[in-house]
């Protein structure tokens, strides 16, 4: 047996855990090997010194301290709260239910307060319910009115809502009532005044007043209106097939109008008269918010002498309007915000007003 093997066995030998045969061999080796015997002696001495280390005494009140903690622990175990919540199998589901309840409650609270915030952040769709087919003849609205008496036709002019809107940029693309209706109205409502200026004649005149530069980037509602009137004034009756298609498209267009999120909807269009008896069409739009709550009205005279009324309706609910004279001079410029009125402009011209 090698010295190294012997020394590895010395520890077990001193502990008495060697087998009898190994112990015999080791003892035989030790008798003949003073080096290994010395190693055994040193190891025995080491263990003696380790064992000789005195034990430390616990502090006097250690038992009391331990038992105080133990009693507190025992008391805690028997408390109602501990009984209810201690077992993990019960505690975890309760906590899970509580967290779920809180999450659901928070979600519904958030939903209940959401519309106010939504008004500011929801972008308006690119193509909205305001869009109307381009080929809809302006006379479609009054298709049935042509068969009505003049008075009833007059009442029917108080259109409460029509989908004649355009989308986002909100440039008014109002389709004027049919020429016969307007013409008849003018004749019926102002019989005693000065003879009404024929619309067929006035429309081209108005068109001539519109500068070309406004017809490009900033196409004014007035211009659109005038063009519509001019088209109607030509007296060309819309084909009946086209009328029925337009009626269908109108119905389709009305449907999404109910789903309006925010924007402008036609409130009414009425005929007023100039001092000289000339009829003028005054259109009023309602500015509505996400909840279809009317914020304000826009009223504008489609035959006025202001042109290039530019409106931009932003997703935030902000409305920018500006008006220009025919020569391009800026008359006023305003910004309306959902949270109130804010004006940025040159004058206080009271054409539009907005009050929440």
């Amino acid at each position: 047996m090698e010295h190294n093997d012997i020394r590895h066995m010395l520890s077990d030998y001193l502990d008495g855990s060697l087998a009898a045969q190994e112990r015999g061999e080791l003892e035989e080796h030790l008798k003949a090997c003073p080096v290994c015997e010395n190693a055994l002696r040193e190891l025995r001495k080491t263990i003696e010194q380790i064992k000789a280390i005195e034990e430390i005494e616990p502090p006097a009140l250690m038992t009391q301290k331990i038992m105080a903690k133990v009693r507190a622990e025992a008391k805690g175990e028997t408390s109602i709260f501990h009984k209810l919540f201690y077992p993990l199998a019960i505690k975890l589901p309760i906590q899970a239910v509580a967290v779920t309840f809180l999450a659901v409650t928070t979600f519904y609270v958030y939903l209940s307060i959401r519309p106010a915030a939504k008004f500011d952040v929801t972008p308006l769709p690119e193509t909205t319910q305001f869009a109307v087919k381009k080929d809809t003849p302006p006379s479609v609205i009054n298709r049935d009115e042509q068969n009505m008496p003049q008075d009833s036709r007059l009442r029917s002019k108080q259109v409460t809502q029509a989908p004649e809107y355009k989308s986002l940029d909100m440039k008014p693309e109002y389709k004027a009532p049919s020429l016969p209706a307007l013409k008849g109205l003018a004749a019926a409502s102002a019989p005693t005044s000065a003879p009404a200026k024929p619309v067929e004649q006035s429309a081209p005149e108005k068109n001539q007043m519109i500068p070309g530069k406004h017809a490009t980037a900033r196409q004014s509602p007035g211009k659109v209106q005038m063009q519509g009137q001019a088209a109607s004034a030509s007296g060309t009756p819309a084909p009946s097939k086209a009328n029925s298609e337009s009626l269908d498209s109108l119905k389709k267009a009305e449907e999404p109008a109910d789903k309006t999120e925010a924007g402008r909807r036609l409130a009414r269009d009425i005929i007023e008269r100039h001092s000289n008896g000339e009829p003028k069409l005054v259109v009023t739009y309602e500015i509505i918010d996400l909840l279809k709550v009317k914020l304000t009205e826009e009223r504008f005279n489609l035959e006025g002498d202001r042109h290039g009324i530019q409106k931009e309706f932003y997703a935030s609910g902000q409305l920018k309007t500006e008006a220009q004279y025919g020569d391009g001079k800026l008359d006023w410029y305003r910004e309306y915000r959902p949270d109130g009125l804010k004006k940025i402009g040159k004058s206080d011209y009271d054409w539009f007003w907005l009050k929440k």
Partner: protein
Amino acid sequence: MLHETKPSVALSNTAGVGTVPISDDDATLVSSSQNGDLSAFELLVCRHQKRMLNIAFRLIGDYDEACEVAQDAFVSAYKNIKTFRGQAKFTTWLTAITVNLSKNRLKQMKSRQGRVAFSLNDPIQTEDGNMTLDQPSNEPSVLDQLVKRDVQSRVQECIKKLDSTYREVLVLRDMQDFSYEEIGTMLKMREGTVKSRLFRARAMIKNCLKLAMGDL
């Protein structure tokens, strides 16, 4: 529901350490403790607190920390005493708790070491290690005591220098006289591993002492 009953074994002096006879069977006290008998558990505390404190102290090397570990060990033992099935001796089970808590505390202390500010009350670091603070003593022979203390402090220092895996085997075997089997149960290792580690631990202590004292 826990209920406190009269101690099944007479408690002579709960504050007096070592007054409860060790020969009493732990099993009876454990059984009573499992039924909520706090007095029985108190007897177990009295019986084993010194041993647990010493184990913790030898493993940690700090008296105050060792006291806390020993207290925690008993509280932990009480909390889990219903899970104790008696497959091993109560002492073995309790020692395993103490060793685990000591190891955890040692890790915490090591991680704290870099953050603790220097204190004048800290042990003074010397070439041989920390100079331990003087403990009050009633020993009559000052010279003998000094020599003895010197040897013991050197042995203690050598033990402290051991890696914890070797130190715990050495402490449990050579200082607390647990068997290989018990140590294997406590530390969850095979008996052969215990023997191997013990051999290495003893060899390292021997070399350390030879370096410290010149001769054994």
